[in-house]
């Protein structure tokens, strides 16, 4: 299945949860926030949120800004 992560297409070979995606991307859940199809995914639901074909995922963090 194909999903979009931060604007880039990504092909997944097997079903994956949000938690699984973070593991694949080697990202620490502590420092980020995730939006799936414009809806926030609360950190507590990463493990049970299954990704579906066509999902648009945004992963953000705090960066320097004024």
């Amino acid at each position, binding site marked *: 299945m194909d999903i979009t992560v931060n604007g880039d297409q990504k092909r997944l070979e097997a079903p994956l949860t949000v938690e699984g995606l973070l593991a694949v991307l080697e990202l620490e859940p502590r*420092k980020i926030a*995730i939006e799936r199809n414009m809806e926030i995914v609360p950190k507590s639901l990463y493990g049970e949120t299954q990704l579906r074909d066509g999902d648009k995922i*945004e992963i953000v963090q705090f960066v320097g800004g004024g």
Partner: protein
Amino acid sequence: MSDTFEVAGRKLSSRLIIGTGKYKTYQENAEAAEAAGAEMVTVAVRRVNLTDKDQPMLVDFLDPEKYIYLPNTAGCFTAEDAIRTLRLAREAGGWELVKLEVLSDQKTLYPDMEETLRAAKLLIKEGFDVMVYCSDDPVYARKLEEAGCCAIMPLGSLIGSGLGVMNPVNIRLIVEQSSVPVIVDAGVGTASDAAVAMELGCDGVLMNTAIAEAKDPILMASAMKHAVIAGREAYLAGRMPKKRYADPSSPLAGLI
């Protein structure tokens, strides 16, 4: 003398809030924050770089336990963009205190006050504590306060312009009418600009470029710290009245 002010229940003794953009490195940013004596820093919310994961992270240099992170909505041009950004910020950081800015065009980055007010109302309904970047229009400033914003942050002049406080009369009007903190946000170029803002009775000053783009940002951060303290103390001390003619400092009596 303890001279603190409070924003949404958080007591601050430093009246200098600094941005974290435009620094050469996060390390330099951290040193500037230290030199400025800042307790609150603004931060932006952006996509994680998935191709280069070794990029330094802000949180590793400016500890969110030490500094109050104030997530902003820089780059947002509609209320919806701003709300989306701040919902993500709340999820990433777990805090409700945010800086709202809704801009109107790229050239001036002037705040779109109609959208700003609309966004502020929606955010407050969702439980956010909203510090709001706004124009120096006292009417809109009052509307924002009435909507429940916890700090009014009028521009001194355009973001990143370094032109100083262009309309001190309006800033003073806003200070006089507001019962929440008023913080001049944007436009400060050098230390005297920060002092001017504080002498007008503002509760604080927020700046980024003035420090980050100084030749020596850390020395400028220190200068800004002193300017904000000097301006604040001058305001509290109450300046002498201005006169049109001289008034000798030495006594006239006993003159030989």
